[in-house]
């Protein structure tokens, strides 16, 4: 285990809160990605109809 220099006090709850925040953010980013994927799935056929144009929004 790495010995981290603790010359600043990270705060008793700071580590715990980061774990919670990271979990919430992780979940949010997961659903955000999922949402983009669903959107991409439904909107893809439309994009393919307009041939030659780049699909930017995905």
């Amino acid at each position: 285990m790495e010995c981290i220099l603790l010359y600043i006090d990270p705060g008793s709850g700071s580590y715990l809160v980061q774990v919670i925040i990271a979990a919430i953010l992780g979940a949010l980013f997961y659903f955000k990605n999922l949402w983009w994927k669903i959107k991409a799935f439904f909107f893809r056929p439309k994009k393919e109809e307009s041939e030659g144009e780049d699909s930017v929004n995905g």
Partner: protein
Amino acid sequence: MVNYTRHPSSFKDPAGFVFEYGGQVYRQVNQYYARQFEHLINSGLYEQLTQRGELIPHQQIDSNLTQSKEWYTTLLPEPVDYISYPYEWCFEQLRDAAQLTLGMVRTAVQHSMILKDATPFNVQFHKGKPVFIDTLSFDLYNPKQPWIAYRQFCQSFLFPLYLEHYLKTDIQKILSSYIDGIPVDFIARLLPLKSRLSLGVWLHVYLQQTANGSQKPGKAAETRFSRKKLMDLVSHLTNIIQHFPAERIYNSTWSNYYEDTILSQEYLREKENIVRQFCAATKSKTVLDLGANDGHFSKLFAGYGMQVVATDADSRCIARLYQEVKKNKITNILPLILDIANPSPAIGFQNRERAAFHERIQTGLVAALALIHHLVIGRNISLPALAEYFNNIAPELIIEFVPKEDEKVQQMLATRPDTFPDYTETAFEKYFSKYFHIAGKQTVTGTPRVLYHMKRKKAI
């Protein structure tokens, strides 16, 4: 006998310290930090950060100047002209410093390192841009550990930005009271109810407040963290900071001063001509522009190649000037918020950690244009007291005397009794002559205003 002075703010970190030796500022690296320092250099992190202008470059000197037992190596960092502190910065300056800090965490992690502290005192404005100055802030990265400096980042960057964003008022004076940043309990009570609708505020303020309160002492939290989690956290913080509105409202008492003056164009041109003559007569390479407003004259001084510190009590003026400096990549103007009647004090341990404004920022020339009527009539500072003040800070002085007949002074006197019988050109010259030679004097044509170029009689 070893002739060095350790910097009074450099006592917290066992990795090393800053000291002055033979008129130059050095940073000693202690053996304690040897492994981290070698990693910083060998991993290519140092090179990448300095090439991007994000970290101050240094020269490594293999000489134990302090003759200390803990010595590992000595660094001579590129000198920063003026040290300024977050309570002298506008919102945009603090935001840029925060972005720089988060960007450094990202880059550091790519090289298996992390920032072990995140305080705005580690960032300085150098050649018009924020730059990270604490080379010893990098630690080896352990993905299982959360970010040790997270709380510090919140307290000293995120919370001040949130406060200013939600309260829509200046918070610099609060920052000078809290050297370690604004405590979470304090901000949680200050933020308005609507801030609870923001996910960022909810997570980083209220959740953190709850977690801090609920933690049992003496028991280290079982933590499982990962690089992805850290990156999510850093991305989220970056996102919050990026999304504060870019264009803030700049209309304040002073922000349209020159535009609103009917005489403006002619008066400005005339005044410019006189100031240019005075500039030609000075050898000074540095200038402190007091009451700089939109920086019109700061830019004039900068045009002469001087290093300019442009100050104003109005944060919106400073914000506007900072954005201009940034946009036009002006490298020799440092805009700072300064209230002359109450300049930044010396703060921290023994009041020596962070020096007072005028101890830190010393220039060869001081400019006080269209200013002293505000100090004498607006703030009740007498002319003899002002003369003494300028004697303390100005080897050379370009100063404008705005007499009572002036339209602006008349406006000021309209709402208060005239208790300033001594406020005359003769008295002004008398009091200032005690300390200064008058090297030049010219009236701005078409106005009763007089510009002076003064030189201090004797060095202090």
